[in-house]
């Protein structure tokens, strides 16, 4: 082999290794800093304590309020994004003409390119006041608007990936359904969606993973009050917003308060890591169904 080939190969290898090393480095920092935290606060307290007040005089270290806040906003987001995203995917696939699809799909993807800070302000200054006209008891900062707007943000993720999944179902199945006298609706929901279900599930899991990690929208619109509740009408705090709050504040480096963000970070990491692996596993398990 020529020397130049060797060098190129070496460079490619190096870039692959660097990516892996950076990932390992991040995990290492997360682990080592949070070990310091868990030496002071036992894991059992971290998981069972019902309050999270590391910055108060009376410190309590229960992660559950932050987890609840995260699950709540994510839940609202998925409740918005799944039906809308799936409907769009089915519409594009079964009903829309080719030209329509060529216009709509890129337009939808624009939704994903809007900066999240814009979404956050949209939630705070448009969605919340609007919702307050319907639900007067809604607080100025709340999980509901943040969740709804987050849902809008992840619609293209679900619609685009689900559309890919549905359109990769063999044409012969669609013909079989039509040949049996199915209407378009029956074909979509009875045959195409179930046949594409693994791809759709993967799209939803990736969307959840995105929602769990989303920071800016919730930081702006959901308030920053850790609260163990599933009521979407009151201010809450998510894991990500807590990390932002502490990172920006004047917490001394190396203190226990400082280490809480790594404990929160590793919790978040466990969530998204598990979700991504789940989607990878589902994809792999069901991929070859038609081959």
């Amino acid at each position: 082999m020529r020397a130049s080939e060797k060098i190129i190969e070496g460079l490619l290898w190096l870039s692959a290794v660097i990516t892996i090393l950076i990932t390992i480095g991040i995990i290492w920092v997360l682990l080592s800093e949070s070990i310091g935290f868990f030496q002071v606060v036992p894991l059992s307290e971290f998981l069972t304590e019902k309050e999270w007040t590391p910055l108060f005089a009376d410190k309590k270290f229960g992660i559950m309020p932050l987890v609840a806040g995260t699950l709540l906003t994510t839940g609202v987001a998925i409740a918005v994004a799944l039906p809308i995203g799936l409907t769009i995917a089915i519409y594009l696939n079964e009903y829309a003409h080719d030209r329509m699809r060529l216009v709509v799909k890129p337009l939808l993807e624009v939704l994903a390119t809007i900066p999240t800070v814009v979404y956050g302000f949209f939630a705070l200054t448009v969605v919340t006041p609007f919702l307050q006209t319907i639900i007067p008891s809604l607080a100025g900062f709340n999980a509901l608007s943040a969740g709804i707007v987050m849902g809008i943000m992840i619609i293209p993720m679900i619609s685009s990936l689900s559309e890919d999944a549905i359109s990769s179902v063999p044409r012969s199945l669609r013909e079989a359904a039509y040949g049996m006298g199915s209407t378009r609706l029956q074909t979509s929901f009875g045959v195409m969606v179930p046949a594409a279900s693994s791809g759709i599930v993967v799209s939803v899991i990736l969307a959840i993973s995105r929602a769990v990690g989303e920071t800016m929208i919730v930081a702006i619109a959901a308030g920053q009050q850790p609260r163990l509740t599933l009521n979407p009408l009151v201010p809450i705090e998510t894991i990500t917003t807590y990390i932002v709050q502490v990172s920006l504040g004047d917490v001394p480096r190396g203190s226990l308060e400082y280490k809480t963000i790594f404990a929160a970070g590793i919790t978040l990491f466990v969530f998204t890591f598990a979700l991504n692996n789940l989607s990878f596993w589902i994809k792999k398990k069901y991929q070859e169904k038609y081959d």
Partner: protein
Amino acid sequence: MGKKTKLEAIDLDAYYGDFHALKSINIAMEEKAVTAFIGPSGCGKSTFLRTFNRMNDYIEGFRTEGQILIDNKDIYQKDVRVDELRKNVGMVFQKPNPFPKSIYENVVYGLKIQGVKKKSVLEEAAETSLRRAALWDEVKDKLHKSALALSGGQQQRLCIARALAISPSVLLMDEPASALDPISTAKVEELIYELKNDYTIVIVTHNMQQAGRVSDYTAFFYMGELVEFNKTKTMFTSPKDERTQNYITGRFG
């Protein structure tokens, strides 16, 4: 002859955009008989088959002129509901295409979308259809297993059972045995022979011997035209048109 006409085309032209795929076809097919469509690839035989259940409707730019009659009713009239039409005109495709569901769910699919819910009715229909398709003995112990685990030949018979379950009166078969091994092919052919007692069957095939074995009538298509249509025996022993003669003796196609 003397039997009733079931399917009929009158001055039928079909176009894919600018391409003239079928040229003024006139044909009348007998009830409860097997008619085979033969001809080289691209001659329009599949297109023609698919006009009888309007399967071409989904292809952009496809249109027809003239009439297609089933039981003397023009199925291209505006008031015809395509989904209703297809409950009467079943179809079996070239490649077996069972749904990724259980064997049982495949067979009762058509009844379920018609709103039949009663389990006893569905179960009985499943058994009857699978028996008719000569598949019952092979699958009766694994009805709730995935249909995709069956062999190609079994899958194709399952697709036939699925089509029969909604009691159509016409069965369109688009090269139903072309993806199967010889033994499965023989089974499907035997089945077609049985089924013609109750159904009007139209089968597209590339296989001359198959047309000879299973069909009562044969239509030869060439370049979008119906060249010759006659009793299969007559057609194969004394074709009138030179092009038919050349094709069935294997000189082209």
